[in-house]
């Protein structure tokens, strides 16, 4: 999956998206066609660094390169939502509405190649 990773490092490592010039919806990772209005022209934007948990799961049978149980969340950043594994987080304490912040952590480990990307860490109130 190296090519997929390489094509989207702007999103995965830098948290950047593409705002549709026609309707303003932000595509992240990139798309050629806006999923809200069908527009095809975009401008690069920086996504917010923090948001609130919109929904979550805790995977007790996660793939080998993750620690089980592996919590993951869809986070509402305001501008758009973003999926990410959670980190430094007690799976039993996760709640919808919980504030989290985007951090860069290891995501996948394939044949010795380590892929870094976005995870979310709970923010203390």
């Amino acid at each position, binding site marked *: 999956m190296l090519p*997929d990773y390489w094509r989207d490092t702007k999103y995965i490592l830098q948290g950047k998206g593409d705002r549709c010039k026609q309707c303003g919806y932000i595509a992240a990772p990139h798309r050629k066609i806006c999923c809200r209005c069908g527009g095809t022209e975009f401008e690069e934007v920086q996504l917010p660094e923090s948001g609130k948990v919109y*929904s979550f799961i805790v*995977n007790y*049978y996660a793939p080998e390169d993750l620690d089980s149980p*592996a919590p993951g969340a869809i986070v509402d950043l305001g501008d758009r939502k973003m999926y990410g594994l959670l980190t430094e987080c007690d799976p039993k304490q996760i709640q919808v509405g919980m504030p989290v912040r985007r951090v860069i952590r290891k995501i996948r480990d394939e044949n010795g190649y380590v892929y870094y990307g976005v995870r979310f860490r709970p923010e203390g109130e």
Partner: protein
Amino acid sequence: MLSRKVAVIGAGATTYAMHFTKSYYDLIAEAYLNAVRSIGPEFDPQKIQASWLATVMKNPIHGSAITQATGLIGIASTRVENMCVAGGDAFRNAVLGVASGAYDLVMVIGAEKMCEPDFEAGGRAAFGWPHPVADYGLSAPGILGMYGTRHMYEYGTTKEQMAMVSVKNRKHACGNKLAYFRKPIAVEDVAKSPMICWPFNLLDCCPEADGASCVILASEQVAKKYTTKPVWVRGIGMATDQQALEDKLSLSEMLPVILASRKAYEMAGIGPEDVDVAEVHDCFSITEILLYECLGFCQKGKGGQYIQDGNGYIGKKLAVNPSGGLIGKGHPLGSTGVGQICEVFWQLRGEAEGHQQENAKVGLQNNTGGMAFSCSAVNILSI
């Protein structure tokens, strides 16, 4: 012989090369945009009703890859895999779609990524669609779990109500000689079973299985020669939305189910209140609760209450999954939908020994699934 003439009105493609800067979805989008633009500015691609996607090497992948790439939310979309013949066969199916009168405007896309290592398939580990790194860590229960957690948050649905779905379907399965499980369970057994992926315990999940099913269809003339009890197809519907969970408008409802069922009900000229028996896609307990709502059997948000009130059992006005559903019967992916049609067929003819819904006249079959639950098919039959 085709019932009516069919024309090709536009065409577009990408160059064929090693396209490392373009993803599979980018290639689909580019070919699609070229074809749409070839027709002219007055053409509105939102009017395309159905699509067929020919892709051989990527697995699993399905029709909603078109929806994800093009943004044509709601379009019916079928992935055709037939090795090298996939493209020609996809085209043939699209022609049948228009020639039959079911559709007036359809699209065929063939797309392949062969110059990169193939994305690893498998239901357990790497459900990283649409992105293998950015979306890593989900699994089939993970995807439904996102819907589940949100439904519990928005409507107060409980794990106990979810367990009641499993209890019903395991009970129904006891009467079905084709089912995987033939022993009932109690609500408490679900919470005691191992946690697989919050919010699902083992007994909230359907089992994988091996299996096959077959149905035979005929025109009215041919049907009369072979049976006095034909089961008629009254309505068909299929719809997709995008594969990215983060871009969906809501995670407490399933848009493809709502759109597909609407198309099927409209074609059949009936509503959800007319259905006597339904075989629906309970891959996880919460899925059936969502399906009660999205198929119109109860109001939005009331799915948990619906099963808690004892609805859906054989003998009630509507029997949901009298066969035991995926939770009771098992889920051999490709066979499940066809098997559901078999079940509705037997129910409507009074041949569902051991698990018969009496006087069933109208049956509904529903398959929902795929990446981020982006596809749904609903077929309505009656005797």
